[in-house]
């Protein structure tokens, strides 16, 4: 048995090396943070196992040396020769003592450094981890479970051996093996959780495991400090400095239970640890674990498809002929990995926008105007121009008969035929975006800028939708284009002010027009009024003239009668009457001279009547 101990140590050491390398590879492959921590832990275990293996070898050699020495002493007769053994009689013991005095503490310090550094760097690394794919997760899960199994078997064996044979140097190895097994199991569980839809658990588990690693480091440094003050007694087997009691405890909770059971036995006075329940628990544990595994496999026989989803069912990778597509509801299938289902959100409306790159900031703007950019980046699309292309005669360079237009075309679509969608194209979503972009380009280069910016817009959106749909069908995409919007078509920001000026000019034209109409509106009624006045005046003239004529005719008839009675007298009377009336208010000078040669001077400046200027005001009294 003695012979075998250090061989066991060697096996454990090699096992830890192999498993830790494998665990690193698996963890890198599956992007598992917990796996990475586990492998780091196993690597530390490998170092510890190496040191303890060397110590075992040294102790073994020491024992061999002691045996040889005893043999030598027995065969020697009186023993005078070797009564006082020289200091260099036991080189192996000296080597062991040197090893324990210098190498072991130095290794403990190194171990502490490695534990601390490992905990620190891994903690930082965990944050940057990405989530694994399902397949990677599955592989990692299976391999970690295998590591756990192997480590557990060897660890358990070493632990029992260490206890039975009092092999203290096997204990640290057993501790690392068993706790490594536990870590592997936890990592596998974390992968299962990730597979079941809780990928963040992996990081949390990794952090917890790192916490354990940090605790071990703390324990290590405390043990180092206590080692300095420990009373050294001869004959007491020393605890290896690098052995962690914490690891031993965590890796073998059985030891704790046994201790507790023994304490209970002592308390109760009978052997609780031999009761049927305790025994049953010990025996049934393996069954329970196996049962759980079976339940896990069976649970993959059911699949629930959520509303709005569809799934593709594949048996050994081949679509199942009668049930290619699973609709919402509960479905039975063969367990993984025979049948696999791939879910797709077929009812979800997916959307993207052509022509711009969305910008968080402007997204919340309420007012969108042409002269300010609405998005992070707007791509100018080429648009045809009906204008005749002109040639610059001097340089011979032709101006390009195109216009540029910034567009913002949202497109919404839905998966219509899941089989076509999933099986024809590897990156169908990107293809839809590209072909829709292409169709918009194709459409814009064939229309005139003013047509599309004005009336043709609604029709254009419908045309575009149909063309994108046709192209998607031609490529067998299995999607339905639900909506294509052309609401964001506008001139590029650089020329937008000029476009606005045109609209301003149209408004101006309209205004000028309206002013002219106002001029017309006021002038015509006035003209009509004036016309009416003219006619009315004429009318009143007519009335006056005619009635005056009639009236004078009437009077004349009467005057004729009067005249007939006495023509001479009537005439004179009429004459005198008139003269008398007329002269009543008139200034009259009657010149009573018949002399034809005399000159009569009349001062006609005399006022006819007094008026207001002839009133003399009384002088103002001072």
């Amino acid at each position: 048995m003695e012979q075998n101990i250090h061989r066991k140590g060697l096996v454990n050491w090699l096992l830890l090396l192999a498993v830790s390398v494998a665990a690193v590879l698996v963890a890198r492959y599956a992007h598992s943070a917990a796996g990475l921590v586990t492998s780091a832990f196993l690597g530390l275990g490998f170092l510890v196992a190496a040191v303890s293996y060397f110590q075992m070898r040294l102790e073994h050699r020491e024992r061999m040396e002691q045996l040889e020495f005893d043999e030598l002493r027995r065969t020697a007769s009186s023993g005078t020769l070797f009564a006082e053994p020289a200091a260099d009689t036991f080189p192996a013991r000296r080597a062991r003592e040197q090893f324990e005095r210098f190498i072991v503490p130095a290794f403990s310090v190194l171990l502490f450094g490695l534990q601390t550094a490992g905990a620190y760097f891994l903690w930082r690394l965990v944050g940057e981890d990405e989530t694994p794919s399902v397949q990677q997760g599955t592989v990692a899960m299976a391999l970690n479970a295998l590591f756990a199994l192997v480590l557990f078997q060897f660890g358990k064996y070493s632990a029992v051996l260490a206890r039975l044979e009092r092999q203290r140097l096997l204990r640290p190895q057993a501790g690392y093996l068993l706790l490594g097994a536990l870590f592997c199991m936890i990592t596998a569980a974390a992968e299962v959780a990730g597979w079941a839809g809780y990928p963040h658990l992996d990081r949390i588990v990794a952090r917890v495991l790192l916490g354990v690693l940090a605790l071990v480091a703390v324990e290590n440094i405390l043990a180092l400090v206590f080692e300095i003050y420990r009373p050294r007694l001869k004959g007491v087997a020393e605890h290896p400095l690098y052995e962690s009691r914490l690891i031993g405890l965590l890796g073998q909770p059985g030891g704790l239970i046994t201790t507790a059971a023994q304490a209970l036995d002592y308390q109760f006075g009978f052997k609780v640890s031999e009761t049927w329940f305790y025994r049953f628990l010990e025996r049934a544990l393996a069954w329970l674990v196996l049962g759980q595994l079976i339940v896990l496999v069976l649970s993959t026989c059911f699949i629930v498809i959520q509303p709005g989803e569809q799934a593709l069912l594949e048996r050994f990778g081949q679509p199942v002929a009668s049930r290619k597509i699973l609709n919402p509801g509960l479905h039975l299938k063969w367990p993984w990995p025979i049948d696999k289902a791939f879910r797709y959100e077929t009812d979800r409306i997916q959307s993207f926008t052509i022509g711009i790159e969305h910008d968080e900031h402007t997204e919340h703007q309420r007012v969108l105007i042409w002269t300010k950019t609405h998005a992070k980046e707007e791509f100018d699309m080429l648009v045809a121009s009906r204008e005749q292309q002109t040639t610059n005669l001097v340089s011979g360079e032709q101006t390009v008969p195109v216009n540029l237009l910034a567009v913002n075309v949202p497109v919404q679509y839905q998966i219509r035929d899941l089989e076509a969608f999933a099986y024809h194209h590897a990156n169908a979503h990107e293809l839809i975006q590209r072909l829709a972009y292409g169709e918009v380009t194709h459409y814009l280069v064939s229309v005139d800028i003013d047509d599309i910016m004005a009336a043709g817009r609604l029709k254009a959106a419908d045309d575009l939708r149909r063309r994108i749909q046709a192209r998607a069908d031609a490529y067998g995409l299995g999607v339905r284009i639900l909506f294509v919007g052309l609401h964001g078509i506008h001139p590029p920001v650089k020329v937008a002010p000029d476009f606005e000026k045109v609209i301003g000019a149209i408004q101006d034209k309209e205004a000028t027009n309206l002013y002219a109409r106002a001029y017309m509106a006021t002038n015509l009624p006035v003209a009509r009024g004036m016309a009416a006045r003219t006619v009315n005046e004429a009318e009143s003239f007519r009335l006056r003239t005619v009635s005056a004529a009639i009236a004078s005719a009437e009077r004349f008839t009467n005057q004729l009668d009067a005249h007939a009675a006495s023509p001479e007298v009537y005439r004179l009377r009429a004459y005198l009457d008139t003269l008398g009336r007329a002269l009543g208010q008139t200034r009259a000078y009657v010149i009573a001279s018949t002399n034809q040669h005399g000159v009569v001077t009349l001062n006609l400046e005399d006022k006819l009547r007094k008026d207001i200027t002839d009133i003399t005001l009384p002088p103002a009294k001072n």
Partner: protein
Amino acid sequence: MKYHPVTLVTGLVVAAIFAAMLVCFQVRQTEVAVVTTFGRFSRTIDKPGFNLRLPWPIQSVHRFDNRVRNFERKYEQVTTRDARLILIDVFLGWKIKDARVFLERFGGDQMMAEERLEGILRDAKNGVVGQHPLSDFISPNPSELRFDAIEKEMLASVKPKALENYGVEVVLLGIKQIGLPQSITEKVFERMKAERDQLVKQFQGEGAGEAIRIRSEADLRRDQILAEAEAKATVIRGNAEQQAARALRTFEQNPELAVFLLKLDALEQALKERSTLVVDTRTPPFDLLRTPPTPATSK
């Protein structure tokens, strides 16, 4: 150390699973697989399903996606037949036709395959665009546009090369975007501005012209109305004269008296206001001043 039978069973099951993992593999509907033995090609599996293999490291399985993959790389400047510069972006969809060739050429690296395809595509792009004038790309007249034909020509140019050299079938190809280089874009903006400016001027001119037309029309209609009214008034006045003249016939009975009476009327009218009359004594009744009547008794 005693082994519990259940532990043994569990161990065996796990071992069996791992053994199965080593010798079995599935090929999905979306995949094509190539099996190599010691690195040498053995077979291609292009039908989905369950397959057996020898464990690693004897045989290895290389899986490729057999669906159409599309990609676009460069938004690149090319020259048209009429020496115009345009930027063109073409997307391309390809799938693995011959998985063995694909594995041998690229070691199964899709990115590398796409880079090689990009090379062929650029060649085709330059070649095909160089054979077409700009008007094939941009035209307000849809019947002149040769977009589809250009895409077909590019596809026809790319397809055989890709199949022959890389075991890859180019399934689809489309122009995603065309544009102009920066310097030309600036010029286009200038032209667009000029065009808009012209429109502004046009609208301003149209506005002014329209206004003049409306105003003159207003003037015309006003004058028309006034003229009509004038004419009407003239007729009325004439009518009035005519009617008045009818009354004048009455005066024909004694024209001499009528003239006398009219004279009297006129005289009265003339003397009504602020006039000064200078008469001599021969004018009746002032003749009385010359020969004042003497009473008969005094004679």
